[in-house]
């Protein structure tokens, strides 16, 4: 089971279950971050991609890594669709992470616009990975709209607060047949590990690395935590002793034959 354990997104296979953000730290550190994180997928804000002759982020991303362009900056489905098409034109491939925010204070995703954009882009052949607030009904709508994964937030983006929405993410993991990738808010390797133990298919992180004292070392710590959590999930967690109340009267005394 562990040998053949692959993350499959839109028919593409990946060995790594740690997705790296790229927008919050020095371009010069991207290569080291990818290497130490063992990452095979790295996100890229299309709005950052082509701003100047020099310091183009695309030049800093190592070959062989799958680009996951995101639609950050989009305020509605139409804008996200336009950004996604632009990414494809730029040669960023067919993957797209949908991010639609109507509020610039908390940067919380707009679930209903995200569903609309997912439906349009999936029909155009994109591998659509929508970032969303963990809501079961929306997740089901995303499945029906053709998403390749569902990316619920763990806590407000950039907050490093960890699995504030744990119970709701667990519901998505239990009920949705697509990979659930926990995105936003994961601040520590232990939190990434916990998400993986719960059955998340992958974890994405950006701020936690960007704000660490030593980025490459933290990238490696995350890689190890994600791998440990995945193995624990596959192995099946052992029992937890609970100090429950003493058993009440026997319930099965009525059985005959």
């Amino acid at each position, binding site marked *: 089971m562990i040998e053949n354990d692959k993350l499959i997104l839109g028919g593409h296979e990946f060995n790594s279950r740690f997705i790296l953000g790229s927008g919050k730290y020095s371009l010069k550190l991207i290569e080291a971050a990818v290497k130490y994180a063992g990452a095979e997928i790295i996100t890229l804000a299309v709005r950052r991609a082509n701003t100047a002759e020099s310091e183009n982020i695309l030049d800093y991303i190592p070959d062989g890594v799958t680009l996951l362009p995101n639609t950050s900056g989009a305020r509605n489905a139409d804008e996200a669709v336009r950004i996604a098409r632009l990414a494809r034109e730029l040669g960023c491939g067919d993957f797209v992470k949908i991010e639609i925010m109507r509020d610039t204070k908390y940067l919380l995703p707009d679930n209903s616009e995200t569903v609309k954009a997912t439906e349009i882009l999936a029909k155009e052949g994109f591998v659509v990975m929508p970032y969303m607030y963990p809501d079961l009904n929306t997740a089901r709508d995303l499945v029906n709209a053709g998403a390749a994964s569902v990316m619920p937030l763990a806590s407000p983006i950039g907050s490093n607060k960890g699995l504030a929405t744990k119970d709701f993410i667990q519901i998505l993991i*239990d009920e949705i047949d697509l990979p659930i990738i926990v995105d936003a808010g994961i601040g520590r390797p232990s939190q990434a590990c916990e998400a993986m133990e719960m059955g998340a298919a992958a974890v994405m992180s950006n701020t936690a690395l960007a704000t660490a004292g030593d980025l490459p070392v933290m990238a490696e710590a995350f890689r190890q935590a994600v791998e440990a959590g995945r193995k624990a999930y596959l192995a099946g967690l052992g029992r937890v002793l609970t100090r429950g109340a003493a058993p009440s009267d026997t319930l099965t005394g009525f059985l*005959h034959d």
Partner: protein
Amino acid sequence: MENNYFVDSGNLSESALKRKHELENNPASRTNHMEYMDGMEQIKSDIFGKVISEMKSYDYNKYTAVDVNRALTHDTCTIEDFKALLSPAAEPFLEKMAQKARLETQKHFGNTVYLFTPLYIANYCENYCIYCGFNCYNDIRRMKLNMEQIEHEMQVIAKSGMEEILILTGESRAKSSVEYIGEACKLARKYFRLVGIEIYPVNTDEYRYLHECGVDYVTVFQETYDSDRYEQLHLLGHKRVFPYRFDAQERALMAGMRGIACSALLGLSDFRKDALASALHVYYLQRKYPQAEISLSCPRLRPIKNNVEINPLDVHEKQLCQILCAYRIFLPFCGITVSSRESRSFRNGIVKISATKISAGVSTGIGDHESKYTGKENSSAEGDEQFEIDDNRSLEKMYNDMSDEGLQPVLNDYLYV
């Protein structure tokens, strides 16, 4: 160990008897049970494949006490956990399973129990299902109620205070057409707040029509999910078509029905595999139709007229209890119905663990509610029963007994919109 199902009536003609024996003894004389008959709608669904492959690969002897213990400590029960809970290794853990099942039942349903009653309106049948009292070769009094008789039965039942009714027929399109059943359901809407049906499987447009007639709940029992065994039990008639029956609940949901019920008839085949498949049928339907209200039944084989020896073989009360605890732990949200096939003591016990719905004031015969409810001699004919019931408590008696057990009986939880 096996039931002896074959009984020859002295009233059958020589040619009928010959045909019956041919069907029983020569598999080549029977139609292909995996092939749809004319008029049967085929829908696209992946549920059939998922359920059947999980069932086929289920090796319940490989599970150990360690697996069962692990399953009992998990917050959410996985399919693997459920398989362990259904396995022989879980038998020594029955009391622990019951404790956990009760917690789940209380979380989702509190201390309530729903009451309903079935109403059989006809017992004509075109199928030869060898274990069933209604089968076309069984020598019983056949009857089909007309609309006045149906309304009279409903009045008698409604007077007892019952608010939910399940309308049943034998499986005969010729004698009990969809329109006939629809008219009966329109009448039922006058007297009851919730109307369910347990009739032959029909196409989506027919379920839609029945929904418009007031039906909101469709029960279809697959009897067994082992298609090879199914073929040996259902020798003649449209019921022979295994996949058409399997997809009935999905067609009903596509037609706008609010709820469906699934079940195997325990005792026909390997009960652990059938219990697994029944629950997975519900599990995958719920994932695909998350708005649907879903329930499971758990009937065991009962004696029938002209064959009182039929019994559920190795599915004793303990095994049934194990299945019902496992169902509850795996599907905490699912309604679980325990019928009057089971004894009073079993039903009193199981409602405190995992059952959420029981029948009361039950007759599986035709047109006999007045005589059964009031003792009044019936001036017109009555049709024979589908099977012998065990628990014959009236609604009033059941209501009081459940209250005495500390449960709140609920007669209706529903608005037809």
